[in-house]
């Protein structure tokens, strides 16, 4: 197994690195969450709870990301973005990944003002 610092970073795995490093960071002594954990006040307990929730969310995201990464062939290349990438889509068997939900709650359509009934996003792709 390669040592961590030797792993090659590229646009396809930068988010994976980011999540791994954030997950490791919250475990290190001396970081903000650890300092909170050492405090005995109610405020600190709430902060620990807050960080625990973030850590749990990161863990779920990391698991989902790792599962999707392992579906890749090693030769996968190409790019895609909102300008329209070409051909690098790989479909994943849902049974081989973990389904997570979008994180933010939504307001029902019927409660929204007219201006928010539909929202277009500009297609930069020609």
């Amino acid at each position, binding site marked *: 197994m390669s040592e961590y610092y030797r792993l090659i970073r590229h646009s396809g795995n930068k988010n994976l690195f980011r999540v791994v490093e954030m997950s490791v960071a919250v475990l290190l002594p001396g970081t903000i969450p650890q300092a909170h954990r050492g405090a005995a006040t109610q405020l600190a307990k709430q902060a620990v709870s807050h960080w625990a929730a973030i850590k749990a969310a990161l863990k779920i995201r990391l698991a989902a990301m790792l599962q999707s990464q392992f579906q890749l062939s090693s030769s996968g290349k190409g790019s895609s973005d*909102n300008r329209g990438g070409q051909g690098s*889509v790989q479909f994943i068997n849902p049974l081989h990944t973990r389904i997570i939900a979008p994180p933010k709650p939504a307001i029902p359509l019927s409660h*929204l003002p007219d201006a*928010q009934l539909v929202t277009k996003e500009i297609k930069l792709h020609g």
Partner: protein
Amino acid sequence: MVDSLNTSLAQLSLSRLGVAAAVIDEALGLGQGIRLGQSTVFSSKVHAFNSHSPEHVKIMVNTDAGQVFYYRSDSGRIGHLDIFHECGTIDHQVAAYYVCSALERYRTIAVQQPTMMSTGLLNPDLVDIQTATGGGRITGSLQGGQKPSVRQVHENHVHVALQLSTNNLVCLFYIVAAVETAIQDLGLELRCNERISYVEAADCQSDLSPYTDQTDSLLVSQQLPEQQASCHVPDITPGSPIVYLPE
């Protein structure tokens, strides 16, 4: 009709929806997707999302929902809605009942409008649904879509496909409101779509077997519903695939 749905639909007067429907029509003409409310993505294409970022829906611009889902030869005739919610199981029979009720309500209101009369109505036989408990035509037996992989991918959204015409786009708001109300009545929270982007797929059909299952859909061909009473039960793709796409 259940009270909660009645209340939701009462907020959606037809006079509110005309301008919004025109925006949808324009987006469809440009081959684009559009967000309806906060929870729903709509287009005539196949949608996909990375498993770790379901709030970001990717519209596969070189696909057609009717051709991929139903093997149709025409294009641009099938509309595709994905309504997102917190993970859980939405009883598809309940959701289908809500959609049927909403379309019936729409019909009642629309025929009273002198400018609409019988135009702009959507035949509920031409609407399919899929959730984590199953799916099929909303007026059918709803015994399809039981494959574990198909059910699992719908743990975070309800998929609806319907036959489109330019004058029935107002119905979309009633369908979305119906599904959103069903989700909330079943105790789950609606979730936001935060981003829509566009990608191209080299070969959309080949890798979609985990997403296919049997259906009684009448969207499969362009035959009239009464001619399809003996239609065989085909495999279709009743959902939005999870993909790996580099960010």
